[in-house]
């Protein structure tokens, strides 16, 4: 299979990579763009470890072929912190032990980040729905709910939703 040019904007930075059409966005991000924060837990769209934002949509990047992402804006976990300042969600995840091994965390963070872009005060139920496709084997989900609500409260208090990058 011949390779094709794929143009991506990843966390605000433009990238041009050459990839076979059957290559997944996950592999492009990890191998060609060099961002390994996005993880491969199953390669079959079942675990959510590879979740990224594609033009604002939450997708399992292992289920997206590179050509489908051509021209898209992608947000990965590496894009959440701005100028070295952690996003409130990142801080809250660390403080509340919303993970143990951390292998699901990158995908979990993106799902929660996407939720907060559209919902500034999510309920427990809404958070559980947002992370319904993110599998965590170590810690389960209660501390994730706690972390998201803590971060949401912080963002509201600051009244500074513009501060969220790539919104």
């Amino acid at each position, binding site marked *: 299979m011949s390779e094709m040019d794929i143009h991506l904007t990843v966390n605000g930075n433009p990238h041009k990579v050459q990839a076979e059409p059957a290559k997944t966005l996950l592999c492009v991000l*990890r191998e060609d763009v060099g*961002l*390994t*924060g*996005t*993880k*491969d*837990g*199953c*390669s*079959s769209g*079942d*675990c959510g*470890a590879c979740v990224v934002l594609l033009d604002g949509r939450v997708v399992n990047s292992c289920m997206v072929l590179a050509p489908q992402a051509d021209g898209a804006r992608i947000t*990965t*976990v*590496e894009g*959440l*912190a701005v100028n070295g300042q*952690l996003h409130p969600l*990142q*801080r809250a*995840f*660390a*403080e*509340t*032990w919303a*993970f*143990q*091994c*951390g*292998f*699901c*965390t*990158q995908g979990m*963070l993106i799902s929660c980040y996407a939720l907060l872009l559209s919902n500034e005060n999510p309920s427990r139920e809404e958070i*559980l*729905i947002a*992370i*319904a*496709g*993110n*599998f*965590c*084997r*170590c*810690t*389960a*989900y*209660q*501390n*994730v709910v706690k972390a998201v609500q803590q971060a949401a409260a912080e963002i509201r208090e600051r009244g500074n939703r513009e501060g969220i990058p790539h919104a």
Partner: protein
Amino acid sequence: MHESSVVGQWVSAPGAEDIVTGKARYCPDIQLPGMLTGKLLYSPHVRARIKNLDVSKAKDIPGVYAVITHADIPGENSYLYAYPDQPLLAVDEVRFQGDAVAAVAAVDEKTADAALEAIAVDYEVLSGIFDPLEAMKPGADQVVAGQSNVMMQMTYTSGDVEAALASADVIVENTYRTQWAEHAFLETEGGVARVDDEGVVTVWSSCQAPHRDRMQIARSLGLAESMVRVITPYIGGAFGGKDEAHVQIHAALLAYAARRPVRLIRGRRESMLTHVKRHPMIVHCTTAASKDGRLLAVRARVIADAGPYSNATHEVLNKFGEFIGGPYKVPNLEVEKIAVRTNNPITGAFRGFGAPQAAFVYESQMDDLARKLGMDPLEIRLLNGVETGTQLFTGVVVREGRAMKASLRKAAEMIAWEKRDQCERSPAGHLRRGWGMATILKGAGLGRGLADHAGVLLEMHRDGSLVINSAAADMGQGIITLMAQLAAERLGLDLSCVRIDRADTAKAPDAGASCASRQAMVSGNAVLIAADEIRDTLLSLAARKIKVSKDRLDLRNGRLLVDGEIHDLTVQNLAERASVWGYPLHAQSRYHLEYPDDAPEVAYRFSSEFFQFCTQIAQVLVDCETGQVKVEKLVAVHDAGKIINPGGVYGQIEGGVAQGIGYALSEELVVVEGHTLNASLENYVIPMALDFPELDIHVLEMPELAGGPLGAKGVAEGPIIPTAPAIRNAILDAIGKPLYQLPMNAERVLAALNP
């Protein structure tokens, strides 16, 4: 003693920022110059003779740097540490779906796949042996030629069970069946290996026991252990499934053969087909009691399907037998443990080491007994529960047993057990609600007579910062956080002044495996000993400098305290002086789990003496039309001794409950004639966020008299153990029908409803 500033506080894990920013490197993220992709060729048959194996075509493919078979292994062709009977690469026969016959290393995945395709194996397919009950019969076809299919058969007896059964007023007798269960750690097994110019082999290994990996890698490469270095990068979960070596030895063999770095990561399907599972067991159990509800005897016979190789089967069955009496006073007990070789998946360590299967049996028996006696499930447990000073049937005397009954009472209070009948039992015609409890004990630590020790190295620098070098693997459970907290506490440091690297055999002494809920106890104590040595140096120096006796001094928040008052001198000042005056500020220590000198020699081999007690109560809603069970609410009360790292403790409990719910209701590897049919995260059904109940956790702190640091004890395994029987008993309460087989999926619940 002042109030703790670090211990017991919610602190972020060292490395948490790397995780939330995506910088943390796990095995699949490691990239070395010239690195090759390693892959294994597995047998498509679960039992076959290898008539011919030809790898020549694969070797000729451009971009293929190494193709190895069993003949290319310079040292021992074995994985295992206890009974090394599983080959790394099959010799003349394959015995289960995960037996590999060859390994390749190539420039990329595509080329590696092409190499696997080009390997020609001529198999003579043999008929497999899949039913352990058939396999254990005399004269049965042997899974491993020349060896009995009965891998182990041991009986332990305490008291006179026969006489007790004869005198009993009530007897319950049932047969229980449990399933193959999958760890499903989110990061699959992986290893990265590199051979440097001096011939030293470095392996980054996703594992629980770096020093034991080193031993196994050296043994198979035919090298001295000093020529092998094992580093654990970030590890994406393990739960016992990475306790034994998996692909890291193959990665090292390939790197050695190719003379280039090799990364070998299992795919999800490959992982599910090849690594050890929780043992499926068939348990026949008889429990006898007097009419007032006192336990008189337990007799259990377990037959475990081991698959073809030993793995941790002996250890798992040993622990099954040790805990089959539950947290109860059982005056007479007999347990027969049988493990049988088959051509089914291999089985081994998985959180709890046989205790979850045992608890499903004894806690189901307790509720069946209570029903027969017309007693309340809480009452019969309180009546029979162990206490401080109780001698268990193993011969071990419980040194701190208050948590048994305290956890029962607390859990009952949290769910309002006494008032449960005020809740709607049938919110709709087809729905039935019920409540069930289970309470357990599980050892922490490997057990008496086993090498249960850990070493650690601490060094304080002249600026007061501290480095901890430990080889205790952190798979997420939080051991490095706990060690950093203990050192910070003793040395009066802010946690940010403590650096703890991930396990590396070249930097730190052996800490043993991160298993059996042991690291908090052994590595935790080792850190305390080493930190106290440095602390003593600092305080001696301060005493000399300011001319007050040492016992009036303390270190806290980076400062020296004199009689509790802040002094001008800081920890940094003291460290600087120590450096200038030539006092050593490094310490190495080793801690061996202590057993009391006055304890009698116990009868049961390798018994634990430190116990985790936990009680869980589940509230379920059963749909009698579909058979589906919803866990509406669950309360979990666990004794942590003393909480050092609350994030780790609560995380372990919640995660254990989640795994327990899956084990109870949905998780089951469907294995037909040795082949796993549902080797994917889609078809192996694990509860996700929306399946999770309202969970209320309470942690009791009843410090052990000895054992872990500051009275703490391990909590890793306890939480998964009571969940399945609690749910089973809740289903029984809801529909009035007992279930005897895991998982209790809709099909089995419907079958119980409509026999």
